[in-house]
């Protein structure tokens, strides 16, 4: 019985670890998105500083591609929108994950207690 419990506990623990990994991954992704958001915000602001005489380039691969200023602004705005959407998506995802991990933790703790009880009993019996 104790062994079965242990196995279960182990599997649960594995699952929990996996979940934690996922959480941290999405967390880092979100942070990246955050950074990109700030960067793009800055770009947008600085593009606003430009005049029509200035030429704007976009680095695509190893090449600088000339872009129209207005076009560049539009793309940056779109990019900002996209980033914001992504951030929100990740937020929801994170919440859900946290919930799940909480549940998992509870299960784990209960399992741990059971396991401890079982082992304790076994020890007592022995």
């Amino acid at each position, binding site marked *: 019985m104790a062994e079965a419990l242990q196995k279960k506990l182990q599997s649960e623990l594995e699952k929990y670890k996996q979940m934690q990994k996922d959480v941290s991954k999405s*967390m880092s992704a979100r*942070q990246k998105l955050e950074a*990109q958001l700030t*960067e*793009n915000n*800055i*770009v947008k*602001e*600085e*593009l606003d*500083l*430009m*005049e029509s005489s*200035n*030429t*704007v*380039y*976009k*680095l*695509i691969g190893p090449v*600088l591609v000339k872009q129209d200023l207005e076009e*560049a602004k539009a793309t*940056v705005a779109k*990019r900002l929108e996209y980033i914001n959407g992504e951030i929100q998506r990740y937020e929801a995802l994170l919440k859900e994950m946290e919930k799940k991990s909480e549940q998992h*933790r509870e299960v784990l703790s209960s399992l741990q207690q059971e396991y401890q009880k079982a082992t304790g009993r076994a020890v007592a019996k022995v």
Partner: protein
Amino acid sequence: MHTTRGTTMADKSKRNIDPQVRVDRLREEHEQVVKGCDEQILHWKKVSGDYEALDDRLRTLPDHLSYDVMVPFGPLAFMPGKLVHTNEVTVLLGDNWFAKCSAKQAQKIVDHRVKYVKGELDDLLKTRKNFEARVGFTEDLKELSNKGSYVDIREEVRSRETVVTKGKQRVAHKPNSKPKLDTVLDLEEVEEEGKGVEADEEYCKILSEKELWARLDQLEKLEELQDEEDRLSDTGDTNGDDTTSSSSSEEEKEADCSQPEKEPGPKTSWATSSPANGQLVSQAAPGGDTTKDEDEQEEEEEDCLPTIYFSHTVEPKKVRICTGKNTTLKFSERKEHSLTHSKRKKKNNGTNGHSHHELHKITSPVDIYRLFVDVKNGEPVPRKSILKSRSRENSVCSDTSESSAADFDERRLVGRSVSHDDAPHSDTSDGHTEDDSPTALPRTPSRFEAFSGTVVEKDPMPTAVPHLTIAPPALPTILERKQEEGTTDAAPPVEPPKRVSKFKAGRQNR
């Protein structure tokens, strides 16, 4: 941000560890946050320094058309070169966006970025301050938990049940008590107070609301019962019922039990007045008819005392009146009772009560006289002596109050037997007067007639009036009586009730 989240998670996971360790851990985490902030601040400071340098360079760059510079050629070598287009800069805006602009514009961009960096720095400084404060707090907390010199002051909130129940109790009582006030004020007051005391006592004992409510219900039932009784008595008074008398007498008894504690004040006041009365009587006694009347009054008053206690069932009305008159007498113990009785009478009877009672009693003073005579072994003389004994003893024989009290007790004992005997005696001896009291129910008019008969005797009353005037008469009561007089008889009956009314008025005033 990441670090804070980490701390919360860590705290959660370490919940079951003892507080000391947790405090330590909290402090550690806080310190870590502060450290992270410091690092970031350093980084941003460096960035801002870079930007300042860049700004400097950009400012001086367009000063010349070309510069001789050493151009880095791979990681290892430099090549001599020339920097041209000094006013043409390609700026990395971020996210792989580049912009070709003049040095001036580049400066603008640099300014913008410096601004951003400054904001970032400010934020970091704020958070660092915040967490430093927290670190200090956790340090204090640690100290607090470590040292026993600090004590938590905790006040536990008790259940508010008591307060709530009190309010409810009051609410429950009010509706029932109000209607009663109309009919019988004193009685209810007494009862209510008694009940209140009881309730208080029980209140202490009772913890559960259920019991309390049950008790309340019980009390309400009791009150209702009494209410009915009171109503009956009221109707009886108007009709001159015997049943009413019995119920009222019972009530009075109840009142007696409770009253003495309540009214110590009135007692003293009456004591002062009573001696005067006694003197009056003694003075009047030697005289002719007038004196007789006075004596009779006295007799009534004095006699009433015994009857009060023992003859309730037989002659309830007499009892009441007697009690009313008793107040004038000197007997302190009785006075209290009489006071209460009189008060109740006033309230109970309202307009009609006074005259009827008086009629019963006073119908013919002679009758009363006879009654007492009968009581005293049938001989009028001994009876008289007994009646006078109090007044005369006080004046002539100088009997102590104790002796008089003892007398009183004796009389009471006698009174019991007498009262029961009284009815038959009176019936045989006096036609209508005594008939009234036992069978009285339907006969209010007859009583009035009887009263008119008595009027003759009370004509001399004026002599007593001056003495009575001492106590300011209560106008309303007089008016009531006058109305009654108008209905019943013309002039003669007026006086006796007036006299009584003045007594009562005196009491009321007191």
